[in-house]
C-alpha cells in the first residue's frame, strides 16, 4: 500500500512543483525558484498566438475521432469473438490481434510508410499490378492524415483493448442466455440484449477515462507522420509544445511550453469532471 503512494507522490505530485515554470520567465541561470514571475503572460501569449485556434481544433477533432474508433472496434471485436464456440480458434485469433500492441510507435510508422508508399510499397505495387499505373501518394493528401493516424492506432490496439471486454463477457450469467434462447431470441438478438448491456458500464468507465486524456494525444506518432501537406490537420497542441518548448532551433522556451501544457491539463480536468457528471445523470455509471 505504501509503495504505490510513494510512487504517486514522487512521480505525480512532486513534479507539479515544476508547474510554476509556466508562470515564470524561466532562465537557467536563475533556476526554477529564482526566475522572474510573469504570471499569466505565457498563457495570454498562447491564446493570442496564431497557432491557438488551429491546434485546439485539430487536437479536439483527432481525439474525439480516436476515442470513438478505439472504443467501438474493441467492443465489436469482443462481442464477436465471444460468439465463437471453437476455443482453439478463439485463443489463436486473440493472440494474433494482441501482438501489434507491442510494436513501438517509431517502428509502426516506419512500417506504415513502407506499406503505403505509392511506388515501392505494397499499396503501390498492388495498385500498379491491377491498374497498370502508380496511385497518388496517400501522404500528399492532408486529409488522409486523420484516418491514417486513427485506423493504424485501432489496428495496433484493438486486440489489447478488447481483453477487458472479453473478460467482462466471461462473467455473463449463462442463465440469461438460456432464458433468452427459450424466449426465442436469435444469436444476434442475444448479443444485443444480453451481452451488450453487460459490457456497457465498463465501456462508459473506459470512455470517461479516455476523455480525461482527450487533449493529451501522444505527440510521437503525430510528429513522425507530419509533413508540410498535412500540417493543416496534424499540428496539435502537443506537437506545438514540443516544437517551441523542447526542440527550439534558437532557444527552447520551457516556460511557454509548460504554460501550454498546464492549460491542457486544466481543460482535461474540466472535461473529465463534466463527462463523469453527465454519465452519472444519464446511466448511473460513474468513476466516483
Amino acid at each position, binding site marked *: 500500500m505504501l509503495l504505490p503512494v510513494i510512487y504517486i507522490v514522487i*512521480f505525480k505530485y*512532486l*513534479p507539479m*512543483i*515544476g508547474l510554476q*515554470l509556466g508562470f515564470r520567465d524561466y532562465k*537557467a*541561470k*536563475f*533556476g*526554477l*525558484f*529564482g526566475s522572474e514571475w510573469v504570471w499569466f503572460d505565457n498563457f495570454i501569449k498562447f491564446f493570442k498566438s*496564431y*497557432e491557438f485556434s488551429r491546434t485546439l481544433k485539430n487536437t479536439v477533432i483527432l481525439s474525439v475521432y480516436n476515442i470513438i474508433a478505439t472504443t467501438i472496434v474493441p467492443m465489436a471485436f469482443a462481442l464477436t469473438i465471444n460468439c465463437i464456440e471453437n476455443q482453439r480458434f478463439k485463443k489463436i485469433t486473440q493472440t494474433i490481434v494482441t501482438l501489434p*500492441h507491442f510494436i513501438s*510507435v517509431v517502428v509502426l510508422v516506419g512500417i506504415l*510508410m*513502407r506499406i503505403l*508508399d*505509392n*511506388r*515501392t510499397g505494397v499499396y503501390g505495387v498492388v495498385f500498379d499490378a491491377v491498374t497498370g*499505373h*502508380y496511385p*497518388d*501518394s496517400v*501522404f*500528399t493528401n*492532408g486529409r488522409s492524415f486523420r484516418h491514417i493516424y486513427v485506423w493504424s492506432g485501432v489496428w495496433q490496439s484493438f486486440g489489447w483493448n478488447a481483453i477487458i471486454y472479453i473478460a467482462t463477457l466471461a462473467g455473463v450469467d449463462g442463465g440469461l442466455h438460456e432464458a433468452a434462447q427459450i424466449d426465442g431470441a436469435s444469436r444476434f438478438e442475444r448479443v444485443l440484449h444480453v451481452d451488450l448491456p453487460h459490457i456497457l458500464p465498463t465501456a462508459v468507465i473506459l470512455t470517461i477515462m479516455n476523455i480525461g*486524456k482527450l487533449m*493529451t*494525444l*501522444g*505527440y*510521437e*506518432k503525430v510528429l513522425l507522420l507530419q*509533413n*508540410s*501537406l*498535412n*500540417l*493543416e490537420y496534424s499540428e496539435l497542441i*502537443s506537437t506545438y509544445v514540443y*516544437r*517551441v518548448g*523542447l526542440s*527550439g*532551433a*534558437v*532557444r*527552447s*522556451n*520551457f516556460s*511557454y511550453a509548460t504554460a501550454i*501544457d498546464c492549460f491542457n491539463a486544466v481543460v482535461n480536468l474540466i472535461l473529465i469532471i463534466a463527462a463523469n457528471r453527465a454519465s452519472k445523470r444519464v446511466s448511473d455509471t460513474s468513476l466516483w
Partner: protein
Amino acid sequence: MKMSKRKIALLLAVAMLIAVALIGCAKATPEEAAEPAKTEVAAETTESTETAEAAPTEKVTLTVWAPDFPRVDYNNNEMTTWLEEHGNFDLEITAIPTEDYITKVNLALTVGDPAELPDVILGGQNVQFSAAKIQEWADTGTIIPLTEYYEDPELAVNINEAFERTGVDYSKQLSMSDGEIYSLATFNQSYGNEYSAKMWIYQPWLDALGAEMPTTTEEFQALLKQVAETDLNGNGKHDEIPLVGAQLSSDKGKWFNYLMNGYTYSGTTNYLAVNNGKVSAAYTTDEWKEGLRYIKGLIDDGSLISESLTMTDDQYSAILNAEEHTVFALCHTTPSAVTDKEIREGYRIVEPLIGPDGAQYAWYSPTQVLHMMVITSNCKNPEAAFRFGDLMSSEYIGISQRWGLQGTNWDYAAEAKDAESWESAYENFDLYFVAYDDAAFWSDTEPTTASWLQRGGLFVRQFGIANGIGVSKGAVSEYDANVYHANALYQTGGFAPAEVIAVNNGNLVYNEDEAEVVSELESTLTSFAQEYAASVLVGSKNLDSDWDAFLAELQNIGLDDYLAAIQSAYDRTV
C-alpha cells in the same frame, strides 16, 4: 501506453530541471561567481605583455579535458609533443568518454565545483559546444571571456594568421550576445559544403535522348518532360521519375531552393535573403510566386513527382535505390545517396538554371565556426591557455590533425616524394601538400601516435588545404572527378549573392530579445511558408486567389517582428 511514455519523459525532464534548479540555488549567484574570474584575467594580461614576445621560459602546466577515442592516447602522441615544445607547456590531458562528454562538461560547468575544473575544456569531432551552451556557461561565470586575448596581436599570432589564410575574420561569429568571445574554434573551409543544393542528372539518359545539358529553367522543364514521356530504362513501362526530392523541411528538400533560384534567391533553410543590407523573406516576393508557378508546372507535367513534398529522407533513398533504376534528376551536395556505383558515376552536375528574367543563384551557406575550446574560471594562467588554443589554430595543426605527422604521413608540395606523380584535387588550386597513404592512416583501426585525428581540439583550414591536397595522377575515380568538378563549378561560378544568411541562421548571433522573438516565430513562419508552397504545388490551394490570404496570414503570425529581429542581429554580427 503512448500517453504514459510521454508523461514519464516529461516527468523525468521536470525532475531534472528541479534538480538543476535546487543545486543552482545552493550556490552563490552567477554574477558574484563571475567577478573574481574577470579581475584575475585582467591582472594576468597586464603582466603578460613583456613575456609575450618570446616563448615563456618557464614551463606552464595546463590541465585539459578532451573527448576520448580508442585510436588516440593524448598523453602519448606526437601532436601533444609538438604543442608542448612550441608553446613550452606541460599538458595533462584527461580523456573523457565521448558518448556523454557534453553532458559531463555541462554538469561540471553549471552545477559542479568550480575548483575542480581543468584549465581548458576541448570539444572535438561530433562533440562541439553549441552557442547556446557557451552562453549558458558564460552566464554561470565558469568560463572566461577571451576578447582581449583575441585583440592582442602578440598573443593571437596564429589566429590572426588564420584570419589571413582563410580570408575570414571568424572571430565575429564567435561573439556572444554580450559582445564578448568565450571560445576558440574550428574553422574548416572546404568546397562542397558551402553549396549543398546542386542538381545532378543522369548522363546516359541525356545521351540517349540526344539532348544538351539544360541551362535555363525552360530547357530544364522541356528536358524533364521528354524523360517522362520516354521509356529510358527500357522495361516497357512509364516508370521513369524525371525529378525527385524529399519534403521541404528535410535535408533532401533543397531541390525546392534550386528550382526557385532561377526566379529569386531563396536563401537556405529559412528562405531569408539580404539585399543591400536589408533582410527579407523570399516567400513574400512576386518572384517567389512565379517560381511556385514554374514548379507547379513541373508537377503538372508529371516531371516532378508530388511525393517529393512529403517523402522523408529514407523514402527518398528507397526510390533512388529501387531495383529498377528510374530516377533522372536529383538535387543534393553529391549524388552519394545512390548506392549503386555504376549508376552513381552516371550523374553529372547541372549549373544553376537561368530563369526567364535572368536570375541565376545557388544556395550558399558560408563556412561556420564550431566552438571547440573554452577556458575555465579555475585556470591560473588563462593567457597560456589561450596560447595553447592559438597554437592549435596554426596551419601545421590544421594539416596534422587530419593527416598526421609531417615528413612521415605527409609533406608540403615542395618536399613531397615523387612530386611529379601527384596533382591537386582541384584544377584551379596549386598542389599544396601530399598525404602519402591517407586511406590507411585515416581508416585504420590501430592506435596512432601521429595526431589527435580531429577527435579532440580544434583546427583551422583554408580552402587551399583540402582543395590542394595531392591526388595520384590518373588514379582518381570517375565519381570523385565528377564531384570535384561540380564543387569547383559552383564555388567559382559567382552564383552566390553578395550577402547571405547561413543555414539555420548560423552566422547570426542573437541578443536576449531577438532570441525570444526568433525562437517563438521562426519555426511557425518557415513551416507555414512550406505548407503554403506544398499546398499550391499539389493544387489544394490556388496560387493566385490564395496569395493575398497567405501574405495576410504571415503578417498575422508576426513576420514583421521576426524580420526586425533578424535584421538587428544581422546588422550587429555580419
